[in-house]
């Protein structure tokens, strides 16, 4: 049982640490931000508090030191400096390694802990007196608890003459939180005595807000001199357990001073409904009673709301369970396809109706199951911020990272698999892209380099761009290197795009020296392969002296894809629809005309094609008219010759298992409506291997 809690604490702590890191990095930029300081403090506080509860005593005592420092910062006794941020980041890493090692495999480096604590203590004692007054103002108060207030607002008769509109004030109150307003109209005189320009109404308001009493006073700032304003606290919702019932009506009325305790006792002695009795006896006017009842109801509602909000908040589920769910949904989609097909074949109206219903439900279930796995990419972004900060420091460069579209959602597995390639690309930008400060100034650019990371939805995929404002790619250097490594012939003339694409070739590296960051000559080809394994693509563009932009296109989800179903003989194959450009016919005449060169004329342009029947060694005769499915891979059009094109298909991807891991040109399989298996073609790999064979020949 304890282990479960420990595990939960660890998960929470890891999350807090991630958040802490990004808060600290932001804090470095805006050292006066009271919100951020509060966030850092609370993260430390939670880690300390929960840590000691679950037996992470070393973490608790270590974190206590850091928390103490941030308490001082929060109270304005200490200023946020670079040293403080550095130390706290180090402390954060130390806590993380303590967590990592908490399962018994060795202990964290105690010396490092001692060093960090010593550093923090030094900061604490020599920085206190000087900075205190200046900082006291800057720190914002920590967020307040939710409190219910009873407000009685009796405006002056002549309030309209000063141009104030009480309704606007009530509107402002409503914006502060949950608000129940009750107008009291008992002050109205008879029509003949009424001054139409005077205000006879007053209001009882019950407001539940976390903004604090000052926010309420601010609402009335312009009118507080000309009105009667009473603000009282009636319930503090977050402070104590709310099992007990809210005050009885009589208690409310006594508290408000509307009746005396004596009156209440007398009335209670009659043992009837108290409220009605009180009114009928003329102790209080009906309106006052209504107002008190409203208060009672308001608090009840707020409490209910709170309870339901607590129930509806998010739950934590192990990722495997989600994977299992998606797998099951995948199976269901397959079975549903069979059901639909069977229903159509039987021409049974009743069965068809059921099949349609199942189809609709399955589609909805599929969408929501896939949606559960969607996560905003922002969590990865904040990790990169740290990376950029640390690496640029190491290389003596001044680089700032900006991000865009952190809220863009992607499948969880995709995000995980994207991490390494993106790290590599960002490292490259820092190491090879952005120049040293001196070099930048000499080139008339700001000392500060920028690496911009952006994510945006585009159809069924997500585009991730990594753009730097560095030196850009050196075309001549790439060319020379490629010739040197024997990747291209010395005489080859390549267009810019293809030249840039060479840096993705295996064993290619243009960096003049090897640094700890990059330049070991492995990498870009690995990056490209990793992206392609996600069925994505990568593109690079660059202007010398202005910077480089790398665009990665990634499908939203891995589990289900739109694909084109084709047939060769009796075998079915799938091509990812995102890669397919068009389909054209290939007749025997065309074949005869091309003299075995596997090139087709499509609107005046030559498109190379791969005859799949031949490639996969499928026996039998090709039909009279074959089909070429033309795909676009890395900007290059390549056709695939098949017997028939069947149509679009929602494909649930199944992996082939270890025995077929090395099957070339196949990325997976799927089960069709009739129960047969269709193989999913790995288009880029097929193109690649055919090219490699052609070069070898």
């Amino acid at each position, binding site marked *: 049982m304890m282990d479960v809690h420990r595990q939960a604490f660890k998960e929470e702590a890891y999350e807090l640490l991630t958040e802490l890191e990004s808060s600290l990095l932001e804090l470095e930029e805006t050292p006066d931000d009271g919100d951020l300081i509060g966030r850092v403090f609370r993260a430390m506080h939670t880690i300390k508090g929960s840590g000691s509860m679950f037996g992470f005593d070393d973490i608790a005592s270590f974190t206590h030191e850091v928390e103490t420092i941030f308490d001082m910062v929060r109270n304005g006794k200490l200023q946020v400096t670079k040293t403080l941020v550095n130390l706290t980041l180090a402390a954060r890493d130390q806590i993380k390694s303590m967590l990592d090692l908490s399962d018994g495999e060795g202990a964290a480096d105690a010396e490092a802990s001692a060093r960090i604590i010593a550093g923090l203590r030094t900061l604490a004692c020599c920085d206190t007196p000087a900075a205190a007054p200046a900082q006291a103002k800057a720190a914002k108060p920590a967020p307040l608890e939710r409190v219910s207030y009873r407000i009685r607002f009796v405006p002056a008769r002549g309030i309209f003459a000063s141009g104030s509109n009480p*309704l606007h004030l009530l*509107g402002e109150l409503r914006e502060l939180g949950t608000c129940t307003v009750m107008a009291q109209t008992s002050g109205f005189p008879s029509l003949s005595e009424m001054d139409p320009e005077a205000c006879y109404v007053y209001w009882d308001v019950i407001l539940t807000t976390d903004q604090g009493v000052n926010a309420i006073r601010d609402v009335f700032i312009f009118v507080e001199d000309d009105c009667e304003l009473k603000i009282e606290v009636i319930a503090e919702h977050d402070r104590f357990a709310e099992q007990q019932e809210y005050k009885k009506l009589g208690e409310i009325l006594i508290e408000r001073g509307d009746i005396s305790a004596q009156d209440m006792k007398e009335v209670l002695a009659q043992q009837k409904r108290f409220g009605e009795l009180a009114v009928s006896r003329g102790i209080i006017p009906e309106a006052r009673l209504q107002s008190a009842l409203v208060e009672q109801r308001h608090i009840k509602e707020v409490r209910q709301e709170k309870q339901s909000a607590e129930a509806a908040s998010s739950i934590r589920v192990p990722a495997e369970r989600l994977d299992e769910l998606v797998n099951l949904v995948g199976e269901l989609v397959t079975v549903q396809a069979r059901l639909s097909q069977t229903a159509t074949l039987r021409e049974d109206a009743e069965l068809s109706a059921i099949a349609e219903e199942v189809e609709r439900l399955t589609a909805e279930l599929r969408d929501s199951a896939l949606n559960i796995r969607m996560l905003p990419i922002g969590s990865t972004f904040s990790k990169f911020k740290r990376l950029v900060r640390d690496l640029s420091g190491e290389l003596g460069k001044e680089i700032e990272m900006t991000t865009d579209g952190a809220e863009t959602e992607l499948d969880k597995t995709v995000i995980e698999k994207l991490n390494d390639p993106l790290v590599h690309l960002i490292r490259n930008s820092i190491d090879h892209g952005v120049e040293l400060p001196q070099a930048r100034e000499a080139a008339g650019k700001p000392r500060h380099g920028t690496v911009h990371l952006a994510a945006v939805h585009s159809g069924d995929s997500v585009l991730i761009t990594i753009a730097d404002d560095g030196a850009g790619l050196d075309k001549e250097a790439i060319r020379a290197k490629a010739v040197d490594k024997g990747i291209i012939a010395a005489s080859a003339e390549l267009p810019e795009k293809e030249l840039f694409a060479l840096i993705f070739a295996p064993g290619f590296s243009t960096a003049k020296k090897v640094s700890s960051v990059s330049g070991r000559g492995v990498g870009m080809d690995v990056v490209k392969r990793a992206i392609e394994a996600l069925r994505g693509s990568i593109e690079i563009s660059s202007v010398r002296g202005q910077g480089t932009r790398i665009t990665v296109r990634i499908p939203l989800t891995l589990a289900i894809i739109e694909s084109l179903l084709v047939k060769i003989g009796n075998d079915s194959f799938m091509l990812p629809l995102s890669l397919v450009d068009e389909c054209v016919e290939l007749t025997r005449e065309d074949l005869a005309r091309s003299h075995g060169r596997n090139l087709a004329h499509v609107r005046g342009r030559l498109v190379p094609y791969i005859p799949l029947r031949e490639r996969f060694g499928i026996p039998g005769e090709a039909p009279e008219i074959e089909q070429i499915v033309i795909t676009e891979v890395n900007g290059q059009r390549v056709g695939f010759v098949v017997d028939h094109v069947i149509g679009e298909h929602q494909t649930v991807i199944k992996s082939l298992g270890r025995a077929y891991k090395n099957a070339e040109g196949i990325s997976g399989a799927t089960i069709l409506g009739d129960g047969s298996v269709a193989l999913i073609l790995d288009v880029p790999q097929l193109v690649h291997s055919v090219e490699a064979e052609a070069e070898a020949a």
Partner: protein
Amino acid sequence: MAKVIMTADDSASVRQMVSFTLKQGGYEVVEAVDGKDALQKLASHKVDMLITDLNMPNLDGIGLIKGARGLASCRFIPIVMLTTESQDSRKQEGKAAGATGWIVKPFKPEQLMAVVKKVLG
């Protein structure tokens, strides 16, 4: 239809800042260079709100507020005065003359917009 706000101030720079901020916020703006100018323009323009400085030549802010409250079209509109921290007595005077509220100088555009939103709804 956009609401119309008049800004009365003898300082061109304050007028400009107020006017720019209000226009950004989607309001129409009528500018007046002093209290007298403001009163004349109020007689012919229908405005939904008035923002006035207190110290102005010809007719000061207090005079303008009193004058405006005397106009049928301006009896109930919000009037906000611009004051400095040290002018507490003037603030009381302004309130007595019929001002709705005040903004303490120097102020930021966001503060101005917050007050406008507060009194104009």
